[in-house]
């Protein structure tokens, strides 16, 4: 027995099935409203969405999309996208296999179909971060691999979080509580001394409810940079991405002047800890030297929200941002290496720039690439 899988474009009447499929996998897509906000109500236009359908039962079994966004590529605005949500109804497919039904691998086809539709819409570049399971099908469908390694910097703010970290280390499991009760105050003492003597700066954070022309000046400066590839951080895009209450938004000021912005995501993580994560930040070119003062202030904000930890995911030092990883280490953040697949699909319009685009050093990365989807 064999089942055919049909790949086709999304239609309005598919919405309940799509939401049903995605809600089993994504925490941020639980309702139709969540889905519409992320996939349809995007200021850059509705996402390009493709579906895989099992033909005999007309059952939706797969989904892939490209969410549209503007990016600046070496000083020019380009119409780009983020590949997102390669999801299959895996328990259903496993059920078919168990019954001896032959099914054809369709992941690569689904991605190819979506990319063709995205190209037809005029998209010039699509980046995505597939998990290991989806990586091969992305590469087979025409994506190039950009990078895998990045660093997670964490500052424990409460001993209960430190105790959790130590418990995971086998040889410390029995004494984790005791050790953390000693180490956590020590870290805070050292941190306070460091800040007292070296961290006093004129930096302050001005909380804002939404992004507007005041923050657009930072995006414009980044967009003019002829050496960088970055998501366009215009107010419209940032308000769409960080509209929810759990995102705390600030303009960074120094000496009475606006020098950048920062976004702190405060949420309960899967381990039950209240986590504050610095998901996006940007400075005017002359403001990067104030990163340390900004982190000190961000730490104060994280504490104000009663967070157990403060996390900063860091990809790499660019020439303009050189030394940020060192600043985090100086402030007693612990570093852990991690892996995240980043892949890029280029249209023929950008083919001449391929070598430069595939050089990770030309990208300005923060969690803006991953956050909120």
């Amino acid at each position, binding site marked *: 027995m064999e089942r055919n899988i049909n790949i086709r474009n999304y239609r309005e009447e598919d919405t309940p099935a799509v939401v049903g499929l995605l809600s*089993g*996998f994504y925490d941020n897509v639980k309702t139709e409203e969540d889905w519409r906000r992320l996939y349809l109500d995007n200021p850059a236009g509705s996402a390009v969405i493709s579906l895989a359908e099992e033909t005999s039962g007309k059952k939706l079994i797969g989904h892939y999309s490209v969410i549209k966004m503007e990016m600046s590529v070496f000083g020019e605005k380009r119409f780009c996208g983020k590949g997102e949500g390669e*999801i*299959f*109804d*895996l*328990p259903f*497919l*496993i059920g078919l*296999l*168990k019954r001896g039904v032959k099914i054809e*691998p369709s*992941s690569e086809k689904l991605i190819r179909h979506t990319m063709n539709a995205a190209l037809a819409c005029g998209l010039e570049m699509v980046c995505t971060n597939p*998990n*290991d*399971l*989806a*990586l*091969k*099908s992305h590469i087979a469908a025409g994506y190039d691999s950009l990078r895998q390694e990045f660093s997670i910097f964490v500052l424990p703010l409460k001993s209960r979080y430190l105790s959790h970290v130590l418990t995971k280390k086998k040889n410390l499991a029995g004494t984790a509580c005791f050790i953390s009760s000693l180490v956590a105050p020590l870290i805070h003492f050292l941190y306070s001394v460091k800040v007292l003597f070296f961290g006093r700066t004129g930096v302050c954070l001005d909380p804002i409810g939404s992004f507007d022309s005041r923050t657009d000046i930072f995006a414009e400066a980044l967009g003019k940079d002829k050496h960088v590839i970055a998501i366009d951080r215009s107010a419209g895009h940032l308000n769409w991405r960080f509209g929810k209450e759990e995102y705390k938004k600030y303009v960074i000021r120094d000496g009475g002047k606006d020098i950048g912005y920062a976004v702190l995501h405060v949420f309960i993580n899967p381990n039950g800890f209240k986590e504050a994560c610095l998901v996006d930040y940007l400075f005017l070119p002359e403001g990067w030297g104030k990163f340390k003062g900004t982190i000190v202030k961000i730490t104060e904000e994280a504490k104000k929200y009663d967070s157990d930890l403060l996390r900063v995911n860091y990809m790499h030092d660019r020439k303009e941002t050189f030394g940020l990883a060192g600043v985090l280490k100086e402030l007693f953040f612990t570093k852990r290496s991690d892996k995240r697949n980043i892949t890029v699909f280029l249209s023929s319009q950008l083919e001449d720039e391929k070598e430069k685009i595939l050089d990770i050093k030309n990208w300005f990365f923060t969690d803006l690439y991953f956050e909120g989807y």
Partner: protein
Amino acid sequence: MKGKDEMKEKLKFIIANCCSIDTSAVDDNAKVNETPNWDSFGHLQIMSCVEQEFGVSFDTRTISALLSYKDILGYLKENT
């Protein structure tokens, strides 16, 4: 101890069988994209056989998270 060893052997046999490779080629570090033929389709076949053999049932999130021999073994130790 015998039960755990048996579980390891069965799991390696399933992975080898689904990836059409020799059991000796499946070591403790076997994982998706690195073990021959362990791609997204091979993964589905592995998870299908694991469900049948060990009487467990996976949801989409779990299937997408158990991407290595060690991950699957850890799950089975905790859930069977």
